[in-house]
């Protein structure tokens, strides 16, 4: 853990980290991109999850919705990752000990595992339920877990500023 702390302190003290932190406009601009990027990342994931639950786009096949929406989700992920990393860069030494930041990273790890498990289990037989308005229980469970985790990530992310 000592290594991580030193890495965060090194990032924090680096010229780029300092430049973002000390600039009047840079930090708020990156922050704004990060907040509005939520729509492209979490908004599109939520709509796919709601499709699995049968709450929207019910008549469209799951594979078609997923295939068309996920490229947008990945764009959102790229925007969030880059802007998020820049924000972290500027505040790394403070983020390291921030409980909300630690919780957010943990939830991000879990939210990454969820689609992996989903993909290699229930999604392998998607052919049998592709057109069902409401998908099998395990697919719906994955959708609920995904939405809960993403909501947790947004809440933890917002909470970083409160600590």
């Amino acid at each position, binding site marked *: 853990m000592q290594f991580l702390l030193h890495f965060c302190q090194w990032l924090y003290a680096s010229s780029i980290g300092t430049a973002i932190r000390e600039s009047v406009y840079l930090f708020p601009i990156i922050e704004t991109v990060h907040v509005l990027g939520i729509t492209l990342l979490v908004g599109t994931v939520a709509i796919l999850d709601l499709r699995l639950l049968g709450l929207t786009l019910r008549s469209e096949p799951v594979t078609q919705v997923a295939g068309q929406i996920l490229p947008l989700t990945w764009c959102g992920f790229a925007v969030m990752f880059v802007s998020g990393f820049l924000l972290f860069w500027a505040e790394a030494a403070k983020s390291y000990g921030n409980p909300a930041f630690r919780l957010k990273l943990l939830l991000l790890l879990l939210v990454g595992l969820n689609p992996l498990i989903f993909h290699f289990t229930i999604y392998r037989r998607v052919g049998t339920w592709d057109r069902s308005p409401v998908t099998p229980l395990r697919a719906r469970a994955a959708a609920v877990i995904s939405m809960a985790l993403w909501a947790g990530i947004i809440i933890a992310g*917002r909470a970083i500023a409160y600590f």
Partner: protein
Amino acid sequence: MLLPLFQALNNSALGAYMTNSTYGFAMAEVVHLLALALLGGTVLLIDLRLLGIGLRHQTVARVARSLSPLLTGSLVAMLVSGVLLVSGEALKCYYNPAFRVKMLLLVVAVTFYFALHRRVVAKAAITPSLWTKAAALISLALWLSVGLAGRAIGFL
């Protein structure tokens, strides 16, 4: 002109609660953010579909019919949580230029969506035209500017 309304909100029981409670403001903020994710997601998927990106295998009409209840629902959640947020700092908002710009843009965006955008979508189902793409771009620009102005409230 609207000052008495904001003064009344500031002096109301709701205003007092939102100002004094420990978690009230933070909770409303969280609801506002979560609803933003869904509102933004539906707006993006509908408008990108009009531009020929995203849910291309589905017709414009089907995408819009499926997603517009989500759009309206998340918009209502944003309005309710937004009123709660404003009541916690009503007078500060009243004098905040970013807040004024946001309210103006919000009225334009909502009016545009319900008065024009939905009609364009209905027509696009039959004959897509240049108007379809223009409407999508105007809609994206309006909602984005509402978001930017909203973000700016905290900076001013």
